[in-house]
């Protein structure tokens, strides 16, 4: 792999950038692999990378039905934080956050992980109780977190409406300074490039249409490019997990819903942090290009359409205008949707299944981008060892049988 650096850029400029190597190759699939990863989103690519890097398993193919990173990885609002309430979730997301911190260097691809801080705003007494609870739990778990009062919020975000007389006044917020945003596409591409350089095959436009089994164990996958043999198949297909499960004649505790986001036209920077409000359902940050990146709520109905209902956009934008009246004259440039896989406890499933050699990593719902490195890391372990990584263990499928859920939304901790 050719190393990227300021120097390499400088060097290539003199040959008019005619000699850059491919970031990754697009080979035809081999007849068989040790591990087939279905889904070329951030999680799938990270899984492939860590399989190769940490476990030395390089006979790996990532099969992607569209283009790499074209799923939710390419359509999320890029918020990264780890201030989750429950110990299990906090451990998982914080593991991820620690991997984020050296990721650009590790991948030699600048994923622009920008720790500009994340605010979760509270609007009523119960919100504030929940915030206190979460921040305390975070601190004792070793995660940086603070409770801010209205004044401190205003200092961080001068344009926020801090009037006490509005319908949803800002009572305060939780603040994770180490949270922030990252460049979503770069995460997928960085992992793709690094995985490919370790020998992983990245096969795009390859849709898995069946999972072949023999005697209760996986033997490979059917695809539009033909059968590909593999003793281990790992599904990391986010919103399509239900469809994938059906290929193996199993069901998952998941439903897929449209989730929308939108961007404004680029404006001169006015917002340095990420501001999230669960109560009014709006999340906003400003990108390095100047556009406001805004996350909306999910549609209430199941859907695979990668688009949602207009009233969701209307509601989100009115919430944004309520929090930030100065945005009223800004204009929406584009809106889009993704398909998120919602689990009953708002926590992911990182698990073996009853079928030998079949693994699922899904259920990240509205908030799995931030987990990309950590998720890939623990999932690779789970696949390689056929045994859950300790951090992943609580996120097994069996929890739905035993009742040992990790109820992140029960505690009003926001997703994203």
């Amino acid at each position, binding site marked *: 792999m050719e190393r990227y650096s300021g120097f390499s850029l400088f060097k290539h400029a003199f040959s008019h950038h005619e000699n850059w190597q491919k970031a990754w190759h697009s080979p035809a699939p081999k007849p068989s692999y040790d591990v087939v990863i279905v889904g070329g989103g951030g999680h799938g690519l990270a899984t492939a990378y860590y399989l190769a890097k940490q476990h030395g398993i390089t006979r790996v193919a990532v099969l992607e039905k569209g283009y790499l990173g074209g799923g939710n990885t390419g359509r999320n609002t890029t918020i990264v934080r780890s201030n989750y309430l429950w110990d299990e979730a906090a451990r998982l997301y914080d593991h991820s956050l620690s991997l984020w911190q050296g990721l650009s260097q590790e991948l030699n691809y600048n994923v622009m992980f920008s720790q500009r801080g994340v605010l979760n705003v509270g609007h009523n007494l119960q919100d504030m109780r929940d915030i206190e609870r979460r921040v305390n739990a975070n601190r004792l778990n070793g995660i940086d977190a603070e409770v801010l009062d209205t004044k401190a919020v205003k200092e961080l975000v001068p344009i926020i409406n801090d009037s006490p007389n509005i319908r949803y006044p800002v009572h305060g917020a939780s603040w994770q300074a180490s949270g922030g945003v990252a460049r979503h596409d770069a995460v997928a591409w960085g992992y793709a490039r690094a995985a490919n350089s370790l020998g992983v095959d990245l096969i795009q436009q390859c849709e898995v249409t069946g999972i072949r089994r023999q005697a209760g164990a996986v033997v490979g996958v059917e695809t539009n490019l033909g059968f590909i043999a593999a003793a281990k198949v790992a599904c990391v297909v986010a919103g399509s997990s239900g469809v994938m499960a059906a290929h193996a004649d199993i069901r*998952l505790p*998941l439903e897929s819903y449209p989730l929308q986001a939108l961007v404004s036209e680029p404006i001169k920077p006015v917002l340095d942090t990420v501001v999230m409000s669960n109560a009014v359902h709006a999340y906003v940050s400003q990108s390095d290009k100047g556009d406001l990146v805004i996350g909306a709520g999910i549609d209430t109905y199941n859907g695979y359409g990668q688009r949602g209902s207009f009233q969701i956009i209307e509601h989100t934008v009115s919430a944004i205008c309520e929090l930030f009246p100065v945005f009223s004259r800004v204009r929406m440039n584009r809106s889009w949707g993704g398909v998120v896989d919602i689990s009953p406890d708002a926590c992911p499933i990182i698990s073996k299944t009853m079928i030998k050699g079949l693994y699922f990593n899904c259920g990240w719902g509205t908030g799995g981008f931030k987990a990309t490195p950590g998720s890939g890391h623990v999932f690779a372990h789970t696949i390689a060892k056929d045994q859950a990584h300790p951090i992943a263990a609580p996120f097994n499928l069996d929890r739905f049988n035993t009742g040992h859920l990790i109820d992140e939304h029960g505690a009003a901790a926001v997703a994203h």
Partner: protein
Amino acid sequence: MLQIYCPYCQELREETEFSYSGEAHIARPLEPQQLTDAQWADYLFFRTNPRGIHHEMWYHASGCRRYFNATRNTQTYEIYETYPLGQQPALTCDIGGKR
């Protein structure tokens, strides 16, 4: 932005009048105590979640307050039919085919 035909009000109404309440035709087990944890979990949490034909329940929350079923394509969002609870859909996967 769906427009849904309420089989009770007998006209098309805007999505905002309704609330969605998940997959249809999931009967509550008559004797839950007889089930294993896994069987119970299957009823509680596990869903078909298909891409394509989906039978689902809607509640006409801001209208007649009736629950009813709909057959909808989760890929195109086209609604093929709505029908009262207790009835079977006219269109099923086998007829309509998966998309």
